């Protein structure tokens, strides 16, 4: 508390006070700005046949709305392009493409080229009324280079966005017809040469960028017709399709392409095109945005109302702390000046709850009537006073006048907090038990389980298991309401500890009186966050926690269908199975469990995969074909696991058994991740032996010690987080993995990883190094109910033996990842919902 005593200035005015009072009065006269409105989603430009933002076969400088994710399939002239594009940042678009290109390999034999490629595009200049958007892009910069090219493009929207004009200049694939000299090429420097042959892919040849003897130009227009959703496009492409022409598979007659596109709904684009004067092209794009859920909102039952504890009228607490309470919040005019009010002295207090109080001392001649008018005079003199307490020189508190809502709230809050409720119930075991049973019943409709409770006369700690709400703040909020409705009146302090996998991760402490004073009021979530304390939960002594040990041993099981998928095999780019997975779990004690999973194929063709025989490394993953063929049914997991909290922010795990489909053994992990910290450290060490192909209980001869040190970093910027792992991989190779992902408050995750080890690129084989993309979509993004389930997809262009990490089902970081202070704050808006 900051206390500053201001005595009356001889002139009756305090100079600083005059300025503050003037400013306060001016602010009070100003109306609030009435321009806040519903946020309007940004316009979504169309995609091209490459599946990136563009015209028909050329790009534009436009970008998709932030975080837009699109999947595109297009076809023309025997070329099928399948692209996943993601607007990773408002100014950065990335995409991965898998193309099936007929007649693009020399015969005899297979002439179809199955090509994987990556693109990226950076916005350099934002479009403005007088200036077009400008972007630079790299196409197929990480692949075999079949579509390799770079470009600079500019796009300007006209006619209120109905007409978009694009012009650009390009290198590589974007150059061909124009025959313009590359301005970067002179005297035979490196920009004059461009290698157009394709290798094994997977490496970036920075020397190729913007090189070649020639550059090309491209451009075109897109017109949004008056027909809703229908757009017409025309473009000029400089691409001569030289390679295709050389194989005789496609010979463009002109560089002009025409197209019509239609959006039947917001998430679907279909297009038809006349390409290069010879071919017809088609495109289908499906697109979604994490910021625009498909599921309706607020379809779940609302929380139970919070019933406040009764406050006795004319309570003695109020009289003692505030004297008579008066309310001038409606805004009474200033009727007397501070100088004329006769106030002897004023002390200003800036209180911890943000309110600003004045403690005024009345002159000795004053009586005990509340001088309301002096309160407004003090407000005008000292500026923005929320409440004034008047004290008689004899020490008696005469009255307190609330001048602003903050003052009212502070009076209410202090009154509630100071109330003394009887605690005799605590001595009665039956009443304690009833309180706990009532709480359990109150939590049950929201599928919040009570893992344990520590109940005292004036405080309660509850350990909760949230089985329903994706956002933990919502489960915490529902628990807080349930506590307020069920705990005896003397329980003022609520400590709520979410428990994940028997680990108490974080502790949220709330004052019951603050909850009672905040619920239903404007900005309630913010006010609650400000008054809450979020810290690491200390390790729990479950034996001393009421109700916990009675829940053990606990058995659970589930049988579910699953659809494992294999992509990008040249023999068959898409293979899949429909299988059933039976899982069982026995929790013997908190943190100690036995886990098993059995998988049986029902139908599918994953067992058709041809074994890979060119690996020079220990075959830690490349025998996948034999595992799939010989392992049905298979034990995909059979482990004993122990997880525990070693210190407030230190977690530990030990696992032993059949850890994953291909390896079994023993391993341990430590994670240090304070709740208030944006980064954490982890370490993992395993000894594992390769399992037999039948995936039952036998082992092969290969064994390895594998492990990693990990750094986890949440940047706090656009939800970007990074993970750096360094250590030894399954094939005995040493190296590191970098994982970058963007996480959204609603549970979406989009990211990618790349692993570089001491295995040379040519020894690694096709793809040069291990890399992949992953996507997580929470169920409640597209289904109209709350769920913690999520859909996860991992796309690995190629699975080889280098850079392969052990698959562990219960690593620690994912358990705590959503429970940091920053993550809770991000989702705190749902606390009261």
């Amino acid at each position, binding site marked *: 508390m900051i206390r500053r005593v201001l005595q009356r200035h001889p002139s009756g005015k305090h100079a600083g006070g005059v300025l503050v009072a003037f400013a306060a009065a001016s602010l009070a006269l100003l109306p609030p700005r009435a*321009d806040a409105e519903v*946020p309007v989603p940004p316009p979504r430009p169309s995609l091209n046949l490459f599946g990136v933002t563009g015209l028909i076969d050329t790009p534009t400088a436009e970008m998709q709305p932030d975080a837009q994710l699109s999947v595109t399939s297009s076809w023309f002239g025997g070329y099928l392009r399948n692209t996943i594009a993601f607007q990773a940042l408002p100014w950065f678009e990335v995409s991965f493409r898998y193309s099936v290109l007929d007649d693009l390999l020399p015969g005899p034999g297979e002439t179809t080229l199955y090509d994987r490629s990556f693109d990226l595009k950076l916005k350099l200049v934002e479009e403005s009324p007088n200036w077009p958007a400008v972007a630079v892009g790299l196409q197929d910069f990480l692949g075999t280079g079949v579509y390799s090219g770079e470009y600079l493009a500019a796009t300007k929207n006209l006619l209120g966005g109905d007409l978009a004009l694009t012009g650009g200049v390009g290198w590589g694939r974007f150059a061909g017809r124009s025959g313009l000299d590359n301005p970067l090429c002179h005297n035979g420097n490196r920009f004059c040469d461009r290698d157009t042959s394709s290798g094994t892919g997977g490496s970036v040849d920075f020397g190729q960028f913007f090189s070649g003897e020639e550059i090309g130009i491209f451009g075109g227009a897109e017109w949004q017709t008056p027909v809703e959703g229908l757009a017409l496009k025309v473009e000029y492409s400089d691409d001569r399709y030289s390679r295709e022409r050389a194989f005789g598979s496609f010979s463009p007659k002109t560089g002009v392409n025409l197209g019509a596109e239609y959006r039947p709904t917001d998430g679907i684009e279909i297009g038809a095109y006349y390409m290069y004067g010879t071919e017809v092209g088609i495109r289908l794009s499906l697109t979604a945005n994490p910021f625009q859920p498909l599921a309706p909102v607020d379809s779940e039952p*609302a*929380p*139970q109302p919070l019933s406040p504890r009764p406050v006795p009228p004319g309570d003695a607490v109020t009289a003692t702390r505030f004297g008579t309470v008066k309310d001038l919040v409606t805004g009474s005019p200033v009727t007397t000046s501070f100088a004329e009010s006769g106030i002897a002295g004023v002390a200003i207090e800036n209180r911890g709850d943000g309110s600003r109080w004045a403690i005024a001392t009345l002159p000795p001649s004053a009586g005990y009537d509340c001088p309301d008018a002096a309160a407004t005079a003090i407000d005008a003199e000292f500026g923005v006073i929320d409440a004034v307490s008047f004290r008689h020189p004899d020490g008696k508190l005469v009255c307190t006048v609330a001048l602003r809502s903050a003052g009212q709230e502070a009076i209410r809050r202090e009154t509630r907090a100071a109330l003394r409720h009887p605690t005799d119930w605590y001595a009665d075991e039956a009443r304690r038990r009833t309180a706990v049973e009532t709480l359990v019943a109150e939590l049950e409709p929201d599928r919040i389980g009570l893992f344990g409770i520590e109940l005292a006369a004036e405080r309660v700690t509850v350990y909760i298991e949230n089985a329903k709400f994706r956002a933990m703040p919502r489960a915490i909020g529902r628990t807080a309401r349930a506590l307020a409705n069920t705990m005896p009146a003397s329980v003022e302090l609520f400590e709520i500890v979410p428990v994940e996998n028997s680990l108490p991760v974080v502790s949220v402490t709330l004052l019951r009186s603050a909850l009672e004073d905040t619920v*239903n009021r404007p900005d309630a979530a913010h006010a609650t966050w400000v008054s809450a304390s979020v810290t690491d939960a200390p390790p729990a002594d479950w034996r001393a926690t009421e109700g916990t040990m009675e829940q053990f041993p606990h058995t659970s099981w589930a049988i579910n*269908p699953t659809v494992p998928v294999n992509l990008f095999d040249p023999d068959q780019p898409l293979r899949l199975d429909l299988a059933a997975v039976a899982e069982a779990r026995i929790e013997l004690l908190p943190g100690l469990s036995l886990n098993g999973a059995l998988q049986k194929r029902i139908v599918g063709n994953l067992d058709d995969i041809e074994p890979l025989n060119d690996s020079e490394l220990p075959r830690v993953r490349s025998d996948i074909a034999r595992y799939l063929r010989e392992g049905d049914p298979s034990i995909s997991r059979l482990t004993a696991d122990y997880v525990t909290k070693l210190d407030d922010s230190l977690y530990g795990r030990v696992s032993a058994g059949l850890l994953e489909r291909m390896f079994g053994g023993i391993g341990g992990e430590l994670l240090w991740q304070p709740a208030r910290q944006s980064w954490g450290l982890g370490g993992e060490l395993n000894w594992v032996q390769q399992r037999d192909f039948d995936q039952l209980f036998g082992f092969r001869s290969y064994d390895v010690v594998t492990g990693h040190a990990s750094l986890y970093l949440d940047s706090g910027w656009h939800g970007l987080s990074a993970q750096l792992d360094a250590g030894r991989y399954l094939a005995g190779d040493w190296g590191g993995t970098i994982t970058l992902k963007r996480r959204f408050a609603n549970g979406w995750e989009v990211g990618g990883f790349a692993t570089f080890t001491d295995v040379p690129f040519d020894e690694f084989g096709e793809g040069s190094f291990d890399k992949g993309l992953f996507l997580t979509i929470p169920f409640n993004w597209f289904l109209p109910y709350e769920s913690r389930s999520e859909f996860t997809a991992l796309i690995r262009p190629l699975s080889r033996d280098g850079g392969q990490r052990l698959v562990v089902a219960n690593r620690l970081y994912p358990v705590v990842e959503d429970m940091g202070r920053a993550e809770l704050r991000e989702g705190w*808006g749902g606390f009261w*919902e």
Partner: protein
Amino acid sequence: MSAGRALAALAAALLGAGCSSEGPQDLDRIAALAKQSLLPAETAAPVRELTRAELDRIPYATIALSFGGGPRSFIVPLADNGGYLTYQDANRRGLVMLGGAVTGTLALGGDLRRVRHDRSDPVAYPQPLAAWPRRVFRDYQFTARDGADYRITLDCAFQTVAAETVEIVEIAFDLVRVSETCTNAARQVTNTYWIEAETGFAWKSVQWLGPHLGRATIEIIRPYGG
């Protein structure tokens, strides 16, 4: 059954094949949703409005809530949080009111989260009609579909229209109709209140609840504390 429906039914059956010791899982719920979307909904029996005599048997304060001339729902307050009354039905749907103002809706879809009223706002803090200010500001708070909060701030001006006799479930009240026009740069909405001139108590109102819910009619069957 069409091929599409058959396919959807097969998908639903497949999804519904999951089961667990923890009761219904996501797959069960997805299957139920798929089935729900395939089979025609049962026609609901027409709702019979309660009579005043029946309403009088409810021993609590009661309000009637209706949308677009639809049937009234009668709900009672379950909590009083410093004047904010939470009215909820058995399905935990309802609204929150402060004075005569709706300050929140509960599980109605696209809910109004909160409203910040001026302390001088006579709808939230009733006062005699003669003392009503000419205009007030309101801050309507919502949550966007992505979970982010947003606000719609409106500048509201009152206009007394006429004295009228209003019937609320068989009882006639002599009230004053006050029209309120709320505007900002992007929208204009109109609220109507039928108030008791002496107290400013709103017996009936038609209020805007947000861009998703539109306007609702609230009638006081039995006032809280009355």
